[in-house]
């Protein structure tokens, strides 16, 4: 892969950077939230920001114009992702879920009406999907999910429970995996639906996460009746579509730009901070730790560029996406744990405290970091995928 950018691409990066410098709301920088959906205020900032991006056509940059995109290349998307990640914009996971995972799946498997109904408003930043995947007894073994979707006249009746559903209390729609044939083998009886979150019978209960935020929810479906046209793709072929959507989910190509920025902040901190009589940047152990993080981040960047490179050449990333996912999640752990080591006693200090470093960014990210190796499939599940799909090792 030759990763050189064209003149136009370099200009596009500059355009994005200039825009972000001018347009990120000052209040967002003040809040310094890493959980964008926590409060009404931060969510409102996020929604407003997404609409702003939508107006520029940047929310769904690669989509065709008929669906509200600009028909731009995957490399432009990569550039945009990198700049958005590095700038800590108000955009959060809701945009990845909606724009990068759910809608592309709808585009692949949905009807013309479905595409027209969901894609353009999503590209304008007006609607978001939450993910109805995990259940209390279906985590890594997602195919054993039990939420039922029973065909009934001109619709389906949904009954069951989802869990770990991020921003379900904010989203307009749920992208739901449900069992439509209880008698079929477990992978062959699942279908995918779009469910309006205002449909009667849905209740959402908050689950406060380990960082103290309301991000997760439990979602209960009690005889929820949805029209038949909300089925996406073929009935009972949902597992296949789910696998496609999950591959989209595992390809978050902008992330290394964010890590690079955190490392640069740490380098600056170490060059300015003395402990025990010398600058931290003169400590060989710390030098080595930061160098290792920079190296790993560069490896991740190249693994991500492969994804973009494949997309550019019309190939569908598969186990390659799992490689970036597992490497990225484990690097987040190393990044913030190493950050904590470098901050020393200051690592304990949270946002708002006197002597807190970077307004508690490292400390908060450290608390959140383990979740990265859980959501979207644990690192163990990713390695299974790499081995089975990527290397052709036998499943039994």
């Amino acid at each position: 892969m030759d990763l050189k950018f064209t003149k136009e691409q370099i200009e596009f990066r500059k355009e994005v950077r200039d825009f972000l410098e001018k347009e990120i709301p000052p209040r967002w920088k003040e809040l310094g939230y890493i959980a964008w959906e926590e409060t009404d205020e931060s969510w409102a900032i996020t929604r407003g920001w997404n609409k702003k991006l939508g107006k520029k056509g940047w929310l769904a940059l690669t989509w065709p114009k008929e669906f509200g995109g600009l028909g731009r290349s995957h490399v432009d998307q990569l550039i945009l992702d990198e700049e958005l990640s590095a700038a800590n914009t108000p955009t959060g996971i809701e945009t990845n879920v909606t724009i990068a995972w759910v809608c592309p799946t709808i585009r692949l498997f949905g009807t013309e009406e479905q595409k027209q109904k969901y894609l353009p408003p999503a590209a304008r930043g007006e609607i978001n999907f939450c993910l109805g995947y995990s259940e209390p007894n279906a985590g890594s073994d997602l195919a054993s999910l039990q939420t039922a979707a029973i065909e009934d006249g001109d619709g389906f009746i949904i009954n069951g429970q989802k869990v770990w559903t991020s921003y379900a209390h904010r989203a307009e729609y749920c992208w739901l995996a449900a069992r439509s044939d209880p008698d079929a083998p477990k992978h062959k009886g699942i279908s995918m639906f779009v469910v309006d979150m205002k449909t009667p019978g849905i209740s959402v209960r908050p689950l406060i996460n380990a960082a103290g935020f309301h991000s997760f929810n439990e979602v209960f479906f009690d005889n929820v009746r949805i029209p038949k046209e909300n089925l996406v793709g073929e009935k009972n072929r949902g597992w296949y579509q789910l696998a496609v959507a999950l591959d989209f989910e595992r390809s978050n190509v902008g992330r290394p730009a964010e890590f690079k920025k955190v490392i640069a902040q740490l380098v600056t901190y170490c060059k300015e901070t003395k402990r025990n009589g010398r600058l931290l940047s003169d400590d060989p152990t710390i030098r080595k730790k930061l160098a290792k993080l920079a190296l790993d981040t560069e490896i991740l960047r190249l693994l991500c560029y492969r994804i973009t490179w494949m997309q550019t050449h019309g190939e569908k990333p598969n186990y390659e996406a799992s490689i970036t996912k597992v490497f990225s999640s484990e690097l987040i752990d190393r990044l913030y744990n190493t950050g904590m080591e470098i901050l020393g006693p200051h690592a304990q200090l949270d946002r708002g405290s006197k002597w807190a470093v970077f307004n508690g960014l490292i400390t908060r990210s450290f608390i959140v970091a383990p979740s990265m190796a859980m959501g979207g499939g644990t690192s163990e599940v990713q390695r299974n995928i790499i081995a089975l799909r990527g290397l052709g090792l036998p499943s039994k």
Partner: protein
Amino acid sequence: MDKEFTKEQNILKASARDFLKKECPTEIMRDMRHNEKGYPDSLWNQMASLGWLGIVIPEQYDGLGGNFIDLAILLESMGEFCCPGPFFSTVVLGGQTIIKAGTEQQKMEILPKISSGEMILTLAVNEYESWWDFDSIAVSAKAEGKEFILNGSKLFVENAHIADYIICVARTGDKNELGKGLTLFLVDPQNPNIKSTKLETLSWDKQYEVIFDNVCVSADSIIGEVGEANDILNHLLDYAAVAKSAEMLGGIQKAFKMSVAYAKERKQFDKPIGSFQAIQHHCANMLIDVDGARFIIYQAARKLAAGEPAGMESAMAKAWVSDASYRVTRLGHQIHSAISFTDEHDMHLYYRNAKTGEIAFGNSDYHLERIAQHLGM
């Protein structure tokens, strides 16, 4: 974003692999344990006639005029087949030094003979108290009229026993001056005041201690300017580190493929061991290491091929592949288990070469420090 290789480079890769598969079975590396010279002549002569020895030598000096990517492709294949011999010391170290810093006369004398396989070179840099740290080089060269007198001891000099020239890095300036004062000398190893002692090595490659005891060399034998060798040495370090990384990549890729194939075929508890998640995760980790190595090495290779500064990229490539090579070959042993801990199995050859490669041109500790400097610390 373009593909990794051009069509010609893909052909070069395929033909290199075909040739080595036929002519360089791993038995050759095993035989080098008890072979004084370090390689079979027939293999060297064939490599010369294929044009490999002149791969990066400009056409006006009878080379193929290829770039660093072409070189990396050959080295990757050589790593895959554990190919022994003086290719690295001659083509990569010696050849690049002459191309980069030699006089026209030196180029005309030496480069065509490298291409034809008639001349073997090596580079003497490291010492007992100096390991790719140019400021600590102690071997001295004192000017006496139009001549220089070399004194001191070099270590880990590859192929000193068969080299036509040793390129010796010696201090001509004040030892307290940092970042300068070094000069490169072309030295004839047959000089009676040079004593070479063979070192017994992990990979049975031929490395020597070379002692210079009042060795007199003429000013004609200087490569580049007196006292100005630091820049060329820094370039050579990047160049050689990435070249060695490419060779190591070929080795770990092979060790990885052998292990996945074995995991599919070896049965225990009535199942292929590759169906166990413990083994699957080892294989997944190996793939991540190998893919990461490929991308980061060719990123640096592309910079070098374009003649751009590649300090950070080469440090990253060598730091990554140094650690990844150990991890991959160690897991290769683990997946094969007892069968790979036999002399006749190839895994220990890859395990050995991984460590030898890791040590060459600085291990990950060394290159992580270079990365730290590039980060601005």
